[in-house]
């Protein structure tokens, strides 16, 4: 049986910036993988995590130790390919069991040239990140000492504009079958109610799926798309997508965002939420080890209700820097950080968490309905 406890294993190392070396076994592609090491506490959904563009530039470790149990299937992708820079697990399953599975996790990583390491004490790594904050790391099958030296020379996560590595090259339309080449003619059977543009700074397909299922015409546009071009498409609403990296490096997107706010109903998710805050003059900061998982409690301050949310972010909006008009609407009950804002005058609200879930609890899909309600109200 080829599992992480198999005989024909190749040693691999995860070398961290703090000098620690974690010995395990190689899985996936036998290449080096370099990035910021982060942990995610979801117990299911590794396929969605692997393909979530917000993980670009990161080595992701899952705290749940058994990964790959249900294989990889053709349906549950959140973007066109694997986005993580490397994958760190306690044990991966080479004998997956699921009717929809068509390959193993290991095969998938290999096919896409993404390295992984298994057999390491992922809980020890998680505790390290929790105590010392996220840090850079390198997965290698070579000498760990050499890797440690190499690590110091490599570009840092915080200095990279990762949005450029994940955003769509061209705009495209979303259909029930998936992405279609652009061209603005309506092709779905029913006349769509609203045209929603989704600014792709690293979007997940499920955002598009949920909007499309709600009867919208959904068009994803590249991150660099100018405000004029977006407005020229005559959208009923614009959704600013989630995405990777530090929002401070994204002034070219922030400028466009600033120009659309107030002119079209806008909803921001995650990076989209941070970009909105920055567009209105607020600032963002880096969290020590971020929020990544499917169990974070968020409170809606208007109603007092608590929602369990899917999260994946390393940066947060500083509530003390919010401009007049933009109010904190949601907070995280674990650490009181800002989880959502709402504008008093403009048709605008944002959330730091992922209402599209996938992976994670589907409790917050209602947010898309609220967005569409706002779109309807605005068009009247």
């Amino acid at each position: 049986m080829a599992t992480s406890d198999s005989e024909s294993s190749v040693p691999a190392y995860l070398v961290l910036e703090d000098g620690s070396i974690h010995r395990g076994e190689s899985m996936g592609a036998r290449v080096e993988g370099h990035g910021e090491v982060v942990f995610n506490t979801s117990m299911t959904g590794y396929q969605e995590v692997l393909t979530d563009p917000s993980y670009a530039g990161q080595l992701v470790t899952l705290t749940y130790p058994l990964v790959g149990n249900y294989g990889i299937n053709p349906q549950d992708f959140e973007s066109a390919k694997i986005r993580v820079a490397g994958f760190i697990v306690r044990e991966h399953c080479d004998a997956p069991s699921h009717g929809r599975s068509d390959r193993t996790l290991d095969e998938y990583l290999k096919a896409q040239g993404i390295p992984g390491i298994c057999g390491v004490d992922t809980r020890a790594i998680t505790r390290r990140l929790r105590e010392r904050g996220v840090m850079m790391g390198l997965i290698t099958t070579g000498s760990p000492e050499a890797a440690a030296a190499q690590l110091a020379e490599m570009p840092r996560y915080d200095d990279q504009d990762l949005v450029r590595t994940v955003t769509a090259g061209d705009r495209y339309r979303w259909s029930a079958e998936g992405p279609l080449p652009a061209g603005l003619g309506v092709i779905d059977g029913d006349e769509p109610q609203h045209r929603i543009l989704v600014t792709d700074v690293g979007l997940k397909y499920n955002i598009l799926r949920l909007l499309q299922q709600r009867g919208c015409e959904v068009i994803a546009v590249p991150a660099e798309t100018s405000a004029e071009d977006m407005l020229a498409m005559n959208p009923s609403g614009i959704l600013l997508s989630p995405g990777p990296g530090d929002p401070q490096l994204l002034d070219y997107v922030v400028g466009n965002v600033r120009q659309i706010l107030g002119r079209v109903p806008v909803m921001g998710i995650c990076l989209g939420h941070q970009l909105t805050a920055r567009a209105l003059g607020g600032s963002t900061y880096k969290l020590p080890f971020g929020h990544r998982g499917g169990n974070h409690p968020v409170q809606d301050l208007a109603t007092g209700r608590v929602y369990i949310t899917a999260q994946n972010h390393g940066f947060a909006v500083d509530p003390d820097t919010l401009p007049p008009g933009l109010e904190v609407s949601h907070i995280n009950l674990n650490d009181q950080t800002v989880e959502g804002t709402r504008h008093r005058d403009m048709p605008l609200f944002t959330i730091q968490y992922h209402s599209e879930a996938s992976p994670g609890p589907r409790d917050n899909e209602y947010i898309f309905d609220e967005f569409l309600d706002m779109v309807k109200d605005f068009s009247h």
Partner: protein
Amino acid sequence: MSNDLDSTTPPLEKVLVIGSGPIVIGQAAEFDYAGTQACKALREEGISVVLINSNPATIMTDTDIADHVYIEPLTVEVIERIIARERPQGVLPTLGGQTGLNLAVALSDAGVLDRYNVRLLGTPLETIRKAEDREFFRNFLHDIGEPEPPNRTVNSMEEAREYCDLMGLPLVARPAYTLGGTGGGIANTREKFEEIVSNGLALSPISQVLLERSLVGWKEIEYEVIRDGDDNCITVCNMENLDPMGAHTGDSIVVAPSQTLTDKEYQMLRTASLKIIRGLGIEGGCNIQMALRPHPRVAEALQAQWEPDSDYYIIEVNPRVSRSSALASKATGYPIARVSAKIAVGKRLHEIPNAVTGKTGAAFEPALDYCVVKIPRWPFDKFPNGDRQVTTQMKATGEVMAIDRSFEAALQKATRSLEIGNRTLLWEGAAAEGQKSGRDSEGLLEPNDLRLWAMMSALRRNTSADELLGKTYVDPWFISAMQRIVSMERRLLGETLTPDLLYRAKRLGFSDVQVGTLADMLPEQVRDLRHRWDLRPVYKMVDTCAAEFEAVTPYYYSTYEQENEAPPLPGRKAIVIGSGPIRIGQGIEFDYCSVHAAWALSAAGVSSVMINSNPETVSTDFDTSDRLYFEPLDEEAVRDIIDNETVDDDPPPSVVQFGGQTAINLSQSLANAGLPILGSSADAIDVASDRQRFEEFLSRLGIPQPPGASVASVSEALQVAQNIGYPVVVRPSYVLGGRAMEIVQNASELVRYLTVATEVTPERLVLVDHYMEGKECEVDAICDGEQVLIPGIMEHIERAGVHSGDSMAIYPGLNLTEQEVDTLVDYATRIGLAMGVRGLMNIQFVIQGGSAYRSPHSPTDDSETTVYIIEVNPRGSRTIPFISKVTSVPVASLATRVMLGETLADMGYSGGLWPRQKLAAIKAPVFSMSKLVGVDSYLGPEMKSTGEVMGIDRDFPGALSKALMAASLSLKRGDGVLLSIADQHKAEALPLIRELLEADCKLYATEGTAAMIQATGMPATMVTKLLTESYPNVVDVINDGTVAAVVNTLSGDTSVMRDGYYIRRAAVDRRIPCFTSLDTARAAVEALLMQRGSYNIEQIDSYLKPIEG
């Protein structure tokens, strides 16, 4: 139920919590755990808690857990009296199992809740009814748009056949409006279908049968959900059953979290669960069971032609805290009962702190970074004749849980935790064991208690995964994991052990014993090798959040990984070895003792380190001890933990007196390893358990014991038996707790016993003792080396021959002469001092001479009597909670302090018999026989009861009535009673028969018994024993309700036993009292005659008034 308080709703100041009563199969220690947590949680909110439970062997009935504790029968009448006195504003029934919910409905139906303006907290009444009533429930699911298993109501065979053609088999048939669902069943074949449906249509008064598609073989998934009064909902955990649909979840191997579900499936079922709890309006915890479409290869094996209209179906909802929620709490660290109790009194999820992290709140969903495996503990080691088939009727008495970072390791650790001999996954005895109960290797792959081992055996014999899946419907993922275990077994058999191989084996959960067996080494050699190679387990924390936040709760499991999170606790500490899974003979009483030991240690400034494997218990609650290791109770696990806690080569001592036989059995291995034991030495323990040494010990003290010897062969046994005289009590020397113990009347029976029932070899000695049919008594005592304190004497109602755990015990011994009492105290004192007991011991006595049955109102018998010692157990016994509660002597706590070096005098106690209380208390056993098909219910030397209740009052009649009421053994005036009395008891039965008539009972009797009654001029109706010949026969009068009780004694001759079996089984199935001991029957009829229709209802502490002077 809304928590919106309008001005007329009184604020909650006092709440009545209903406990779940005696431990029975399906309702075990988990409700003591839940109830205890709830009481603590409510009191934290400033609410005064009134508690009622009939089960004294519970932590929740300790007087410091609730403000007002009532140990009284759980009946509407009793609860109404308590409500009338205490006037609580609310009643919380959701922590008392189905018993609690049923009582809530009954209290409401009886108008009690309205009469006293008591609010039902937690789950609305309508919901309790909905979840129980199939019709209501189906309508509910329909209303909220959640899928129920496909079904159709049919009124004729034609309609039925039409549906059968459409859906295919198997189909479940449920006739409408038949009593207890009689006439229903599952049809796997067309013939069976015709039979069941036509039968069902005939039985149903409206000729209606519900046909439901059977989902056997589908994945069975559970979610634990919590909702608060603001409609905030979370799921605590989901669980996947390794055994697919068809086996009761309580009888299934369960894994948390789910292993084979994609995120899409996980979230689909989670979303459905939230919809259901919202729809039901529950405020608190709820368990939802669902069937999920199986793996395509399983679906293929099921050969269903039917195309399901949904990927999942809702199977069942438990609108309350349940066994599964206890498991989920222990699996995640999230205290469901505690949170549910707070929600029931109006708290919102986010207002309740997460006691585990100490930093976050209860409004989140636990993230696990380990795998949890639960395996049920079945009683078939005690009942080899029982039907081992696992079906929809739960049969397990308890369960074990294990945690590790791989499924394989968790499965192997859980198997070790079961404590069935030394049965690891390597055990190859399933086939032989199965054969005994008429099951071949194919049959063993159907759901039954041996299936896990049968599957492993099959894989070892190269059965392919597909073939195994085709026979078991177990998901391929689990079978792959088992294959990985088998591959490792082969490597260990074939390869030279290297550090790498051993490390990989440990990571797959192989114990040193297993590695030793395969690599041809002694376990101790494997251990040495491990240490030489520096392969030691590390301990990781169960923290609810997968290490995302720092946690404060010291709850650990072992694994083979890099980082150890459990540095040794600083300062003085002691290990408390728990009692493992609940099984017959080792029940919740031992957990009660372990909990008190941990508390006493902490109170004395000694850190308590608890080891246990049972998720149902208070001992494994996160705040019971200073540190908790959730681990198997075997030598390897315990020694590894002690190693981990050792500072400067000074290992902490272990407390072995409270964990029943489990802990006592470990004492020799710990002593051999040079590890310290608190209290009585391993040698003192050995004196009590080694027959030879014990006999010498007693004769040195001049204390008599029934003559007997241990024998190594059949001929030796016959010789011994002839010398000491029949009847003799025989039992294997290597098992304790009455397992396989029998009373044998003659030589041929003895030969049968030694050849069929057990085996006798020089390695496996059998004890043969003269059987003395006398009055049985027992004491628990605390010895500090200087004095022996005896809190009280318990007199058994049933004479010797009935296992003490199955006997009714009276405190204080009401029918003992002062001389007998003095002798008991003298013997106990001398034995305790001479044996060197430090801590607890339990002594069983038999008093010979005089009448074996002493009625509390018959004149005192002046005959000479002799007191014999039957056995001494140098440990806590199952009567500790009872005796503690009726004397107010904190027995377990005092014993712990004695073990730490305090003396009784230091603690303000003196030796001798503690002043007898001015009360009478009776402990009555409770059985789960209706759930164990094929098991004979007669009382004998082998223990059969699963739980106990207590009746306590100011006088004996009140206490007896309440004990019988709580144990469902009460008789009523005018009841019909069926008598079938063995010849040797007939004469003795006459007074009983006279008393039954005095109580206006109508007597029915089998031939011989009827003839005897009629010969004495008393009336009795003869009923035939021959089931085929005439009507009514013995079973008919039971089934049609003509009789409300049965008295059936056994001659000891096995053929007659079979005859009476049908009578006893019918009584059990009909749930009417079945007395197999004349003594119990006489107690019951005397209670009826003595009853003045009144008994007291008091808080437990108001009964306890020590005798002045």
